[in-house]
């Protein structure tokens, strides 16, 4: 499938000398939800700022829908909607005027029906005549989304859409994102809530210290890199792991009542069968067995901690 956003060898050095991006290449496919994960200062916002035209592109090339963002900036930017991380919205103007302003900026004719639909979808219709400064934080954030949707973008960037948002609102935001995807919009969201990426993303890109560390299908990622953990609960507590079981790398709990065994479920031999046999040979009586699949969070922490 053709990429709708293509980032090639992009480097960005700020005037302060800080190198925010150190050669990033990334293809974003049409219609997908891509989660851009990374710790604070990893370069997520810089990457989005470059694609959207807020920061000047240093080295490299970026196209949106095949349009170069520098030479064909009008065509490229027309396709993009941006919801910034900071809740910045003109405080004195009404919701309606603020949203129609954005539509005008994108060169589109007035379309009250469309703006009404967007405001209704975001539960802002009742507030259309309120000045934005009178709104709650969650509503202001939705105003930003409404602004970004006012011109029917093909690609939507959500920079930390759920930072500081309560659980209910976050779920609501995910619902909106899924609806937009169903309508064919490509969505890129940055987040450091792993839970968010797991819940809605099709693919996950991990960025750290200005480099893309990994881009992978979410399910495959969890599957491939997912470590599983087997916990064996014992009837009688142990003082130490028996010598005969040393090759398994078992971890004994503090109370001595459970053993943990980490394995790779994608491996040919997981070692579970032989472990169980060896446990019984060692004369240990089992009370219960439990397995746990590692989450994206564990994977993420692993990737980011790894020295570059």
């Amino acid at each position: 499938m053709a990429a709708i956003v293509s980032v090639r060898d992009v480097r960005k050095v700020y005037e302060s000398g800080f190198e925010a991006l150190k050669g990033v290449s990334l293809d974003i496919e049409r219609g997908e939800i891509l989660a851009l994960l990374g710790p604070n200062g990893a370069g997520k916002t810089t990457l989005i700022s470059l694609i959207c035209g807020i920061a000047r592109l240093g080295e490299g090339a970026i196209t949106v829908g095949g349009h170069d963002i520098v030479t064909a900036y009008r065509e490229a930017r027309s396709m993009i909607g941006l919801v910034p991380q900071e809740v910045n919205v003109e405080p004195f103007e009404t919701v309606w005027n603020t949203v129609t302003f954005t539509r005008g900026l994108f060169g589109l004719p007035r379309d009250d029906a469309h703006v009404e639909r967007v405001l209704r979808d975001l539960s802002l219709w009742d507030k259309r005549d309120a000045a934005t400064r009178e709104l709650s934080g969650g509503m202001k954030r939705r105003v930003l989304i409404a602004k970004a949707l006012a011109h029917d973008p093909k690609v939507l960037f959500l920079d930390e859409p759920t930072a500081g948002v309560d659980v209910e609102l976050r779920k609501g935001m995910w619902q909106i994102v899924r609806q937009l995807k169903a309508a064919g919009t490509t969505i890129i969201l940055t987040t450091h809530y792993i839970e968010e990426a797991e819940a809605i993303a099709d693919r996950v890109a991990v960025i750290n210290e200005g480099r893309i560390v990994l881009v992978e299908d979410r399910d495959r990622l969890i599957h491939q890199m997912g470590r599983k953990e087997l916990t064996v609960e014992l009837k009688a507590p142990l003082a130490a792991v028996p010598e005969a079981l040393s090759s398994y790398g078992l971890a004994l709990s503090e109370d001595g009542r459970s053993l943990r065994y980490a394995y790779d479920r994608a491996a040919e031999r997981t070692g579970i069968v032989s472990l169980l046999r060896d446990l019984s040979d060692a004369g240990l009586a089992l009370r219960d067995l439990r397995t746990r699949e590692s989450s994206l969070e564990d994977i993420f922490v692993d990737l980011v901690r790894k020295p570059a």
Partner: protein
Amino acid sequence: MNARAIRAIYRFEMLRTRRTLLQSLVAPVISTSLYFVVFGTAIGSRIQEVEGVEYGAFIVPGLIMLTVLMQSVTNASFGIYFPKFIGTIYELLSAPVSYFEIVTGYVGAAATKSFVIGLVIYLTANFFVTLPVAHPVWMVGILALTCLSFSLLGFILGILARGFDGLQLVPMLIISPLVFLGGSFYSIEMLPPLWQKITLLNPVVYLVSGFRWSFFGEGDVGIGVSLLAILAFTLACLGVVWWIFRTGYRLRN
């Protein structure tokens, strides 16, 4: 060209003007009236006529210029500085608009506002003095061009400003003295010869002189020189705006 974007910016800025309409218009009207009371009555009773014009009428072009210059600079600088300050500038930078469209929208709106204020002062002045306008078309033209060029200057200052203090600095410390020393309330001929020459370095002299010519058919310098000076100033501002946008100076990182 994205004409709809120009209209959107212009309309959004004019909405802001409308929200603050009362203070925008009342303040200049009151201060103009005060000038008439103080300058016109107190000083005018002693001077009576300058260049064959009643002193009260003589100062009107200067008074209009004083307010229009201050308003143009203040409005335009605030108009572009505010989005920078609250962060909504991201929207302009990520929209499919060219620099030309951004400048046209913001400067056009600021110039419109100060043009209206200029006309209001003119109307107010008519309550105090009889005010002939010798060249009405030129009067409107010079006023419009002045609004435009100083709104451009304000736009530049708004982009360069690092804080609200900076926005106040130029109108207070530069524009205001230049207007007061630029022959707004006196004829240059009243000055000693040396100061007559030094005064000619003040760009506002040409503005006021040209504007006064459109009222009374008489100015300190020729109307051609005045027009050239106004045009040169406008072009200089356009040049700086062009440079700012080409380099993204203090706009794009």
